[in-house]
Each structure stands twice: as structure tokens, then as C-alpha cells.
């Protein structure tokens, strides 16, 4: 059987490419996304490599040099105990980024799980969405106190004080911020579920969990990505809120949110104390958001379509 158009390459079609390559090409086309990527990589490099260049320990106290404006010895100035702000911003960045990214991943995992289950299985929809409502309504602070009380010592003895608290904080932020993701994912799953390729998969005898993993998830990825980028931002900020409620890391553990909060009262004395952590948070959020925009554009099926 002959078919002219089947074997001849279709007009406008480049030879076969990988999806990753495709997405990267789309991503590159988004200028904001590229700039965001640069800034983000710069920040990550700075907080991880920076301490090797600026070799001042973040919690060296030197009361005689407190509340200093930026100088060569202390490029970002010092705080009210004489600790070097640059070193603190760098150290804080490591924690804030780690918390932001892991908490976001956890929230994403939970949100996606709940969203997919409730979108895909009609019977679970009602109960899961009501549970989402419940979590939206739960008062964060008492919840935190309960969690701290129940798990802190166990975690501390299992993972040591710092990792223990880290796990706890990530967990707390994670379980209190997945609800929006769940809602969005559910909506998307509902839309994807009615598409014919899902019916096709079912009719070929695929098991439900395989359908979810192979067909549903990849197609709701773009909205998950958007939640992810917003999630990092809110996780960093939530961590700062926890810190100043006294529920976060120990006080000699700088994080961006905490530095910003502690510095706020010293704004008139040493403005650099709030400037840098504030800038760091904003730039991270901004860059991640631009990246998210670009990723969403790159994953958009409309862009993939001929």
C-alpha cells in the first residue's frame, strides 16, 4: 500500500528529538526564565561556594564590632552581636533554600497525591476534598505545638538536633501547604481524565495506578511545576514565621527569614541588615517564579503541538 505523506517527512517537522531537549529549547526562548535561571544558579553557587571565599564563621560573636555598616572586613556589615552579616546571609541561604526546596517537594508530593486521587477516583473525591478543607481551616500554631511536642525528642535522638529540627520544619511546612496544589491538580486531573487517551489506556487493559503514573501525571505536570515555584517562596517565608514564633531552628541558626525579621528593628541603625536578606528572598522568589513561568510555557501542550 502506498501512502505519499506517511513516509515522506511532513513539512515543518524536524527530525526526532527528546522531550527534554524540546523543553529546554522552549525554555531558552523565554528570556525571563533564562534570566531567572541565571540568578537562581548564582544564588545557589553563592551560598554553597561563597563561604570558601568569605571565610568568616557566621556565628563568631564580636561584641566590640557590633552594628557596623558595611566595610571591607564585613562587606554586609555586622549585627547587634557583632556577627558578620555576609557570612550569615550565606549560611542562612543554605538553610532557607534547603527548607524551601524540600518543604516544597513534600507539599507537592502530598498535594499531587491528594489531587490525583480525588480527581481520578470519584468516590474519594468528596472525602479528600473535605479533608483539604479541614487542613485549610486548621490553626497552624497549635498544630505546630502539638507536632513539636510529639515528635521533637524522637527526631532529635534519631537524627541529631539540627537535622531533627530540619525534618520537623520541613514536615510542618509541607503538611500545611499542600492544599492549594491539591485543588489545582484535582481540576487538571478531571480535565485530563475525560480525554480519549485515558479511555484508550483503560481499554487496553492497563491497571489504574499505571494509567495514573504514565498518562495522568505527565499531563498535569505543568500546573504542578507552577505550584512548585510558588511553594518555594512561601516555604521560605513560612520558615521565617516559624522562627520568630520560636518554633523554628535554634536561635544561633541563621535563615533568611529570621535575619530579615531580626534585622527589621535595626532598620534605622544598620539598614544593610535587612537589605541583604530581603533582597535574597525576593531575588530567589522572583527567579524561581520566572523559571516556573518559563517551564510552564515549555511544557504547554499548545507549544508542543504542531
Amino acid at each position, binding site marked *: 500500500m502506498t501512502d505519499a505523506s506517511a513516509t515522506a517527512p511532513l513539512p515543518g517537522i524536524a527530525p526526532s528529538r527528546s522531550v527534554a531537549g524540546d523543553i529546554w529549547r522552549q525554555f531558552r526562548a523565554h528570556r*525571563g526564565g533564562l534570566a531567572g535561571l541565571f540568578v537562581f544558579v548564582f544564588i545557589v553557587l553563592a551560598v554553597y561556594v561563597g563561604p570558601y571565599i568569605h571565610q568568616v564563621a557566621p556565628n563568631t560573636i564580636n561584641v566590640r564590632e557590633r552594628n557596623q555598616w558595611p566595610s571591607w572586613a564585613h562587606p554586609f556589615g555586622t549585627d547587634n552581636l557583632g556577627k558578620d552579616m555576609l557570612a550569615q546571609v550565606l549560611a542562612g541561604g543554605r538553610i532557607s533554600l534547603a527548607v524551601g526546596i524540600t518543604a516544597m517537594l513534600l507539599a507537592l508530593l502530598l498535594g499531587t497525591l491528594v489531587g490525583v486521587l480525588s480527581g481520578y477516583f470519584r468516590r474519594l473525591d*468528596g472525602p479528600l476534598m*473535605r479533608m483539604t*478543607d*479541614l487542613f*485549610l*481551616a*486548621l*490553626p497552624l*500554631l*497549635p*498544630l505546630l*505545638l*502539638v507536632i513539636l*511536642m*510529639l515528635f521533637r525528642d524522637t527526631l532529635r535522638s534519631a537524627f541529631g538536633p539540627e537535622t531533627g529540627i530540619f525534618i520537623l520544619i520541613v514536615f510542618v511546612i509541607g503538611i500545611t501547604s499542600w492544599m492549594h496544589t491539591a485543588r489545582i491538580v484535582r481540576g487538571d486531573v478531571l480535565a485530563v481524565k475525560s480525554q480519549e487517551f485515558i479511555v484508550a489506556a483503560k481499554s487496553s487493559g492497563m491497571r489504574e495506578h499505571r494509567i495514573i503514573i504514565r498518562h495522568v501525571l505527565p499531563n498535569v505536570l505543568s500546573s504542578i511545576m507552577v505550584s512548585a515555584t510558588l511553594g518555594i*517562596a512561601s516555604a521560605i*517565608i513560612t520558615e*521565617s*514565621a516559624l522562627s520568630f514564633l520560636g518554633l523554628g531552628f535554634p536561635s544561633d541558626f541563621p535563615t533568611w*527569614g529570621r535575619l*530579615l*525579621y531580626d534585622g*527589621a*528593628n535595626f*532598620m*534605622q541603625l544598620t539598614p544593610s541588615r*535587612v537589605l541583604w536578606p*530581603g533582597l535574597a*528572598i*525576593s531575588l*530567589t*522568589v*522572583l527567579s524561581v*517564579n*520566572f523559571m516556573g*513561568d518559563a517551564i510552564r510555557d515549555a511544557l504547554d501542550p499548545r507549544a508542543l503541538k504542531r
Partner: protein
Amino acid sequence: MFTYTLRRLFFAIPTLLVISFVIFALLDLAPSDPTGDLPLTIPPEVREQIRASLGLDQTFLIRYLKWLQQFFVNEPLNLLESLTGWQFGDGERMRVLSWATRSPVVDLIVQRLPQTLWVVGLAYLFGILIAIPIGVISAYKQYSIFDQVGTFVSMVGYSVPTFFTGIVMIVVFSSYLQWFPSVYDTNLRVTDLDSLWLQVKQMAMPVAVLALYNASQITRFVRASMLDNLNQDYVRTARAKGVKEKAVLLVHVLRNSLIPVVTVVALGVPTIFSGAIITEQIFRVNGLGQLLITAVQGADIPLVQTLTFIFALLIVLFNLIADVLYGILDPRIRYD
């Protein structure tokens, strides 16, 4: 539509009961204690007496059932009495009492509502009013300078915490320029133009801080939704009819785009009632948010329980309202 709404309302009841139980149990587990605030000079025996007088010696289940009755039967009756002037029974009903103030929780909430609505509500409203035009223009001129700047500003607005913007505002506008007061006066009654002006002045900063934050979020939604709709076939139809570009945008596209935004906005309304805790604290707008945070910090459990539950109620209610609104705005979803 109507029966659908009714049915949803009906099913909300068990949901709410479960939520109330979870909230109650959770707060019961929480380790904070109402006597934690008292000076250490008060001896432990006295503390014990205080706890007993708060009813803390009863079992969890009894306290829960009591609360249920107080909240669902007694308080609504009281409210009805005060609204209509009728008398039900002898009026000697147990009310949900706050531990810290020893006054009925509902009265406290009613007292706080006005400033919360004024400040947080207005900020929400302003946020929406700012967000819509910006979102519309950003979407219409996607990738233009306006869009880029708008995106940048909204991202900054989203990423800078309110405790920071609030303090900057106080330092600039209260300390240096002395334009606005840094402390909100909840006693101010608006009776004439002068007091109105004072009210506007004291609301300016908290409203600005919150409106910026709200607007940054809603703008993103409006923009995304507009972009979705601008590519729809019916837009082309409208243009083919010769409808003016402005009408295409504002009548056809905007109306459609607002449907998802309306749900987002409706679902955000409960957060008005939970208050903007940090902003209220900074400007001393003693609204519901401040009430909640002092209650949590002072372990005023009945107050936290009631406030949280009301919040849950609002979330469920506004979920419903969002659904109903969706149906009203979008004829395709109208049920029955």
C-alpha cells in the same frame, strides 16, 4: 441549582462536625496552658485552682459536647434574642467563655469584626480592584514592558513578607514624614468629615500593605485566565462581528476570565476573617487576627476553638458559595 445548593449545605453538616472534633482534639493535645502568662510569683496551688475554675478538670468529651451545645444552640439563641428582642427561656444559658477575658467569646468576635472588615476587607477589595486592570492589561499586552514590570512588581509584592513592608512604612510615613499614625485607634467613631479623614489616615498604611500583597496574587490569576480566554474561538467570532476591541476585551473576554478568578477570590474571603495576623499586630489594628494570635499565645482554648471553627465554617461556606457563584456566572454549570 437551588436543590443542589441545599444538598451541598446538607452534606456540609457532618463535614463540619468532623472538623470541629478534630480542631477540638488538636487544641486539647496542644501543650500550651492558660496560666503560662501569669507571673511566676503566683504559686502552683493557685494555678491549679485557676485551672479548675476554667473547667479544665473535666474530660475532653464532656467539654466537647458542652461546647457543641453552647456554640450551636445557646449562642445562636442569644444572637437571635439580641437581634429581635424576643426572649427564649430564661436567658440563663451557658455561653462559650474566653479564659483570658472571662467574657463570652462571641461578644469578643463581634467587637473585633468591624475593624477587621474595614481594614482587611477593604485591603482585599482594593487588592482585587488593582489586580483586575493590571491583570487584564498584562494579558492583553503579553510580554510588553507593562507586563514585565507588572510581573516584577507582583512577584516582589508576593515575596516580601508583610512584617517587613509594614515596618518600612511605619519608619517612613510615621517616624520621618509623620503623615500617618502608627497605631490604629479602634475607638475612633466616624461622625463627620474630620473623623472620616482620621479614619482614612489610620487605615492607609495597613490597607496599603495588605492590598499590595493581595493584589500581587490575584493579578497572576487574572492574567493567566485572560490569556486562556483570549485564544478562544468566541473571541474571534466577536471580532468578526465587528465588535469594538475594547468591548471584545471588557465584555466578552473579561467576563469569561473572571469566572475562575471569582472562585479564587471567594475562596480567599475566609482569610479576611482569619485576619492578617502580622499586619494587624504591627499596626495594632486589633481585629480578629490579633484576637486569634493573642488567644493562641495565651492558650485561650475556647476562643481559639471557636474562632478556628468559625473559620472552618467560612471555608466550607465559601467553598459552597464559590461553587454556586460559578454556576451563576457560568450558565454551563447550572445544575437541575
